[in-house]
């Protein structure tokens, strides 16, 4: 093992959309001069990719910052707004709830919040600062002081993927990534490995490792032998409406008999996605048919698929963006040290499939309470919710409010608690741990908590006011 002195090893990223740009800049930032990063792009703007949806979870903050795209740039240069989560309305089997992001819930006398709430027969939402603020349309950055209730209010973003792609485009252009703009003519395979990519401009690009970020065309990974499994298909269309000022700091998803409509409240636009059954006919002019599913292996030979080339997830939660982030993180952790990549490939695929499964069970959980659906969309969505891990989560929570978790799940215990309770699941029994604490004592603590959250929310500024002030502040900083 010596210092790397030889010629830089090339890594090719194919694709110029959100996935391609994020992968290219992340690789260039993380890997040293021992690697050359080459990005191959089709000419012209990448096509609109509505399957990323418009929701990003709180963990995207650090990920984008490491890529060089900080919050100030997102807020000043794009229409990105803040998001405490997603409000589900008229959801079958439940009515509705606020699926908010939240830091680990507080405990009372060392016992988790949910047990107190279960014993008292109360709803969860009044105790969640981010849910209350979202409903009131108010926002403020969480303080670092952990004793302040607002510190629990984690937030993500409402965003337009095309705008983020454009920002990243500038970053990549100013980086050491070597870009080639020319359509792919042929992917050459030798001994099961991608040996070269032929471009229309006559260039032949060779590399040790190829990243397929070409979206559903899967141009390279399919040539390498990757196989996509379609779980079901949906029909989705995008519409955009200009607005004067942003709406609440959360997305809304409204269900109806034929499907659902999500609405994201960006700084000067509302972006809506309509999703229904595939055979329901186009409802928006731009509606397209989308195959949901994933590759049986995302890393085949020397080719790694990321983003929609690897998995296509219904944009019902921040999951599509979570998956893209995880695809890239997994790749960075496992950039192969040598040409034989068996070990890295196996670990990558294991974790890829776990991420896919863990996201799927969270989505499936949303459809479990849809009883006897007759409409085609709901029928299809509720059809395949059999999963041992999901069954365990539901039965453990339903019995005694126990949260079963698995390794490195993308949705954490707070997400699951909020979803369970939002969907109307209540533990049959409360946890015996709590018997040691008098009900009156825990009721008092709950009342205090609720009151302090109510007061805090009333002092927070409306989302639009906060955004404007924050932008003014950032501009002053930029000048200074």
């Amino acid at each position, binding site marked *: *093992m*010596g*210092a*790397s002195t030889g010629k830089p090893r090339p890594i090719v990223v194919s694709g110029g959309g959100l996935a391609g740009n994020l992968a290219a800049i992340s690789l260039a930032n*993380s*890997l*040293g*001069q*021992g*690697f050359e990063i080459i990005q191959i792009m089709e000419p012209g703007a990448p096509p609109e990719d509505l399957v990323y949806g418009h929701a990003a979870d709180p963990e995207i903050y650090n990920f984008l910052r490491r890529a060089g795209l900080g919050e100030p740039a997102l807020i000043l240069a794009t229409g990105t707004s803040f998001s405490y989560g997603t409000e589900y309305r008229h959801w079958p089997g439940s009515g509705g709830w606020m699926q908010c992001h939240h830091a680990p819930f507080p405990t009372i006398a060392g016992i988790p919040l949910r047990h107190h709430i*279960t014993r*008292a*027969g109360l709803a969860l939402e009044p105790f969640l600062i981010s849910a209350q603020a979202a409903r009131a349309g108010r926002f403020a950055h969480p303080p670092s002081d952990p004793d302040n209730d607002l510190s629990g209010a984690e937030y993500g973003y409402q965003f337009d993927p095309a705008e983020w792609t454009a920002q990243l485009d500038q970053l990549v252009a100013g980086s050491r990534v070597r870009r080639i703009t020319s359509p792919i003519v042929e992917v050459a395979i030798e001994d099961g490995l991608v040996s070269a990519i032929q471009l229309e401009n006559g260039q032949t690009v060779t590399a040790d490792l190829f990243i397929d970020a070409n979206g559903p065309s899967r141009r390279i990974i399919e040539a390498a032998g990757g196989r996509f499994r379609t779980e079901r298909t949906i029909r989705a269309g995008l519409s955009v409406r200009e607005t004067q000022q942003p709406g609440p700091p959360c997305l809304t998803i409204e269900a109806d008999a034929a499907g659902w409509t999500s609405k994201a409240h960006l700084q000067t636009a509302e972006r809506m996605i309509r999703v229904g059954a595939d055979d329901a006919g186009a409802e928006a002019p731009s509606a397209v048919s989308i195959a949901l599913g994933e590759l049986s292996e995302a890393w085949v030979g020397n080719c790694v698929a990321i983003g929609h080339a690897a998995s296509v997830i219904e944009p019902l939660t921040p999951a599509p963006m979570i998956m893209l982030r995880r695809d890239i993180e997994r790749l*960075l*952790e*496992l*950039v*192969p*040290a*040598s040409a034989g990549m*068996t*070990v*890295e490939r*196996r*670990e990558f695929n*294991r974790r890829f499939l776990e991420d896919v499964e863990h996201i799927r069970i969270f989505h499936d959980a949303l459809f479990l309470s849809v009883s006897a659906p007759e409409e085609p969309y709901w029928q299809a969505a509720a059809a395949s919710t059999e999963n041992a891990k999901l069954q*365990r989560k539901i*039965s*453990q929570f339903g*019995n*005694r409010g*126990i949260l*079963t*978790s698995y*390794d*490195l799940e993308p949705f954490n215990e707070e997400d699951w608690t909020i979803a369970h309770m939002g969907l109307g699941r*209540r533990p*049959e*029994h*409360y*946890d*015996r*741990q709590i*018997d*040691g604490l008098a009900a009156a004592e825990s009721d008092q603590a709950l009342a205090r908590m609720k009151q302090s959250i109510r007061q805090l929310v009333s002092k927070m500024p409306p989302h639009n006011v906060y955004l404007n002030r924050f932008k003014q502040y950032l501009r002053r900083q930029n000048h200074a």
Partner: protein
Amino acid sequence: MPETRPPAIRQIVIVGGGSAGWMTAAALSSLLPADQVGISLVESEQIGTIGVGEATIPDIINFNALLGIPETDFLKATNGTFKLGIRFLNWGGLGEDYIHPFGQHGVDMNGIDFHQFWLRYKADHPGSTIEEFSLSAVAAKSGKFTMPDANPRSVLSQLRYAYHFDATAYAAYLRNYAEQRGVQRIEGRVTEVHQDAQTGNITAIDLDNGQSVAGDLFFDCTGFHGLLIEKTLGVPFRDWSHWLPCDTAQAVACERGDAILPYTVSTAKTAGWQWRIPTQHRTGNGHIYASHLLSDDEAIDSLLKDLDGDVIGSPRKIRFRTGHRAKFWEKNCVAVGLSGGFLEPLESTSLFLIQEGISKFIALFPAADMPSVVRDEYNRQLVKKFEQVRDFIILHYKATTRDDSPFWNYTRTMDIPDSLTDRIELFREAGRVFRYEDELFSKPSWVAVMMGQNIVPKSIDPIVRTVDPAGITRSLQSMKSAMTSAVSNMQTHRAFLETYAWSGKDAERGAGGER
């Protein structure tokens, strides 16, 4: 919300004393109000206990803290000493020597694991070992000890420790604790176990003194007998001896020298290994071996030959079976300790596994109906813990170049669980270590053992290649000198103990080994 509440548990019966029984009794009595839940513990003075595992890992500190036990009290009562890690001799190959310390090596920088920087550093400094960068290891090798500093800026904040102690004395200490909190100790041997004809639940046990003890919930702490879980409920055992072929131990105590080492020693032998555990008043020793490859007499000779002080008493033989119950919790019976499962104490996990059995039970504390969903979750979590510890222990046997006996030829070439193969290969490729979320052994532990037993990465993580090697050398050398100077200011372990928690007891003669 109106709730149809199943009746609460009113009476808990723990069958068997020893570490498992009294740890269970102490923990339950500290949490359950004595006026609502009765706890009794049945044990017989005629049945000896196997004081399992006097060497521990840092989690024991949490257990004592949960009970509110003052550290100095505990150390005096159990002749306890401090432990900074385990020194492994002859494991990777004959003549080899490394320490698996508690706590981490060095400091992670920019989100990159420390050992990656060290691998880069080693490329230019071939003589370097990773334990030079562990404060616990450096202090251990110098025979020194001090308390960690809570201030994260201090180099002393990196120190982690556990204890060595007399497990029989610990059980006695916890007995006193539990009895003060209302646990009723009943002397007697179990003669019969009664079960409900319909549910199969255990309803009561009869004792040889004519007494009958009824309960809603029974803990089986009867050790390898498995009186309730196996003899009564017939829960099968999953045998892991094909991965861990040792099945017998010979244990004996010896006089210790003036110094007290702040670490456990594990020396690999021809067909197993020997432990050395220093307590305040003597040294515990034991030779663990595969009985089909080594006779008892040979094992005893080898044990006695390698004592570093005069022998006290004569060796005691312990037979064991490696593996675990298919279910730790069946019907209204929970098996804690050896009745639930056994893994040789190579990484000092015996008391930890008991602790997990208790704490996971407390987290899932059931009503008297004990629904199967609660039991399933308990069983799932415990099996996972056992498997994680198992893989780590197997690593020690697999990662070796020893070919000097049939024992090592077997372990070196045996098939190992896929989960472990993947881990070893990932590390060998580029030094990558992935820790599963709630795993006991941290990344530094895996790194210490893999590096210590010659699983050397073929190359370093490409991400480290961006960092300037001169900068790495500067950072590492400053870490090293900070550690060296911190250790030079520490007292010896013995001097520290003498002022902190000296029991003042002389060596007790006559008792057998420490286990």
